[in-house]
């Protein structure tokens, strides 16, 4: 088989993996090929708007497992291929020196058994790191059920390891992925977290200790293939960050790949807006000092499609506002809709030189359209506005794809349903917009 055909098959099989990040590790070239930037680097953006940072391929898509949500499942009739370790290493190097990519993201279907697959992946990575002296980024996926000794070896070659949780609960996993046990996912995750902690201690004593997965570990789960609500997913996410010190949890809106009575119908559009809201909530956990229980509660188990979760929290907690921009703690500033980590940091620096007014805040980069209803500052004692006006300022325009003829994939389900029933796109988004604004202003 031609290399071009292999690349096509094995990239196609890998495309549903979300992570393509190259962040979390800093390494210089040192006279060899390759380096790593701590912030990561996107080399292209594909037609779906996702960042392409790494050469994301499977070593092989020949699979012994039969997970119903996966394109590569044993029972699916698709072309199969496998790279030799040499082919893969050569391709990575040639793409890398042309600056197409930041490194390699190597995953694989389960060829024969998990251990055999891991050994094949490790030999490809050894070739890259050893013979080619490659110092760029490597993200490797561990195979559920592999021997801990193999995970150890892989962690010394890769910058980031990941184990996919796949589905947000054990029940769904049992139903849809009968070959993957919950323990086969959490055991390697625990091992990676523990080894990384020990490695940090050893590095503190002896700086030439080989580094184990310096960019940490990540995971991903499919959203919309199984019945879990957002609250369940967010609490699970929070637990993963706390318990296994994960660097990232990725969500992947389920795209139907097979007709199966246990799964959503093939015509179901991927829940992209829900995925987007989950990422926003994930950011609140990681950068805004929010806890999962603040973002969602028992009586509100799902994220609001029309509001970003931070605005949602602000609307439910009017007693927290107004925040005095010139006095508030940084954590308080971060709770204000329209102030992000960057502008909060700038406010803290700038206010030391003198009290800030609205013009100064605007110049600093605060989004006053939303923030004006939640702050006071020099010469400004807060906006006097009707609830309806505030509601309209807070609604997320992306959910309505307002102003465009063409309906965005991100628009809220209600808008999609109206258009599917024959309403013109503009009218549909306007109707839902008005209803959402009315509904929100009543809640305020």
């Amino acid at each position, binding site marked *: 088989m031609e*290399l*071009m055909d292999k*690349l*096509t098959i094995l*990239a*196609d099989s*890998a*495309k*549903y993996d979300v992570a393509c990040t190259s962040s979390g590790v800093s390494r*210089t*070239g*040192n*006279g*060899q*090929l*390759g*380096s790593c*930037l701590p*912030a990561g*680097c*996107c*080399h*292209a*953006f*594909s*037609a*779906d*708007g*996702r*960042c*392409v*940072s790494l050469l*994301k391929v499977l070593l092989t898509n020949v699979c012994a497992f039969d997970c119903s949500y996966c394109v590569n499942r044993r029972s699916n009739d698709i072309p199969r291929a496998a790279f030799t370790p040499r082919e893969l290493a050569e*391709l990575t190097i*040639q*793409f890398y*020196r*042309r*600056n*197409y990519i*930041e490194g390699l993201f190597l995953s694989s279907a389960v060829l024969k058994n998990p251990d055999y697959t891991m050994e094949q992946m490790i030999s490809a990575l050894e070739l890259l790191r050893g013979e080619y002296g490659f110092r760029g980024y490597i993200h490797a996926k561990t195979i559920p059920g592999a021997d801990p000794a193999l995970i150890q070896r892989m962690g010394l070659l890769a910058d980031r390891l990941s184990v996919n949780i796949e589905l947000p609960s054990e029940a769904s996993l049992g139903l849809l992925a009968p070959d993957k046990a919950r323990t086969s996912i959490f055991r390697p995750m625990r091992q990676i977290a523990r080894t990384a902690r020990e490695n940090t201690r050893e590095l503190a004593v002896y700086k030439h200790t080989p580094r184990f997965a310096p960019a940490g570990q990540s995971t991903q789960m499919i959203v919309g293939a199984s019945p879990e609500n957002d609250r369940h997913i967010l609490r699970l996410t929070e637990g993963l960050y706390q318990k296994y010190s994960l660097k990232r949890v990725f969500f992947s*809106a389920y*795209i139907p790949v097979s007709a199966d009575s246990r799964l959503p119908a093939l015509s179901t*559009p*991927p829940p992209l807006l829900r995925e987007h809201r989950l990422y926003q909530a994930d950011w609140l956990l990681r950068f805004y000092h929010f806890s999962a229980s603040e973002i969602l509660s028992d009586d509100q188990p799902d994220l609001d499609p029309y509001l970003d979760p931070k605005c949602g929290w602000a609307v439910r907690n009017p007693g927290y506002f107004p925040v005095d921009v010139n006095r508030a703690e940084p954590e308080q500033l971060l709770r204000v809709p329209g102030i992000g980590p960057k502008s909060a940091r*700038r406010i803290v*620096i*700038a206010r*030391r*030189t*003198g009290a*800030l007014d609205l*013009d*100064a*805040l605007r*110049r*600093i980069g605060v989004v006053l359209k939303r923030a004006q209803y939640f702050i006071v500052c020099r010469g400004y004692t807060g906006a006097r506005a009707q609830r309806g006006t505030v509601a309209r300022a807070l609604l997320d325009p992306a959910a309505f794809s307002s102003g465009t003829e063409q309906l*965005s*994939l*991100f628009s809220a389900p209600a808008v999609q349903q109206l258009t599917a029933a024959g309403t013109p796109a503009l009218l549909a988004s306007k109707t839902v917009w008005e209803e959402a604004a009315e509904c929100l202003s009543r809640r305020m």
Partner: protein
Amino acid sequence: MSEPQNVIFLYDGSLQGLLCCVFEAVSGRMLPLNIQPEQTASPTLFETCFIETDPTHAARVARSVSRKIGPRARQLVGHVFLSCAPKKELLILRFLLRGWEEGPRICNMLGHPDVAPLIDAEKHLLNEAHLLKGFLRFSDYGGILGAVIGPKNEVLPLLAGHFCQRLGNEEFMIWDKTHKVALYWHDKKAQYFGMEQFTPPPAGAAEQQYRRMWKRFYDTIAIPQRRNPSLRQNLCPKRYWAYMHEMEGES
């Protein structure tokens, strides 16, 4: 010195030259209406005055900036000078005049009208440099790598360190088409030189094959059910597409 005089300063286009304009403004107690590089200055009815570049004057200003306003101010001025902000020379002059009054705290006055535009210009420059670390494409011409970029800001000095250490064992050239400058890395040494025109040689068979494979990978990795051209264009603006092989034929 707050009222601008009806005079336009011209300088040789170098940072040293601009610092001499600052020297002139301070020593002559004269705030010009504008400061422009001589090469690109448009004809004007206002009086123009060419400021000679005197290295000792430039050094005096640079030293004073470091000492009295601080190293961060020096860095900010350097960055803004590389940026494409309109009237960046005047922005720098106003910032420095304010800085000599306020001292190092000026760099923390992020909401001040004499400071915020510089922070924005710097952000634009650094952002473009970061994007180009990813979007720049090399081609292999018989073992030597060559790339062409067309940035708005003068980012080459910011890209140099990154590529020289990443591709330390390679030989390469990056040509900045907008600013007509090239960076050449060979034998562990980097050098810049002016370059008006550069036509890349035709790509060899292996090069063409890798470009095809990259294009194929790029096309394959997108998920059709998630197609979102406007999101892509937000993240990778069209002006970079002409230099990226994978974007050929995209719209």
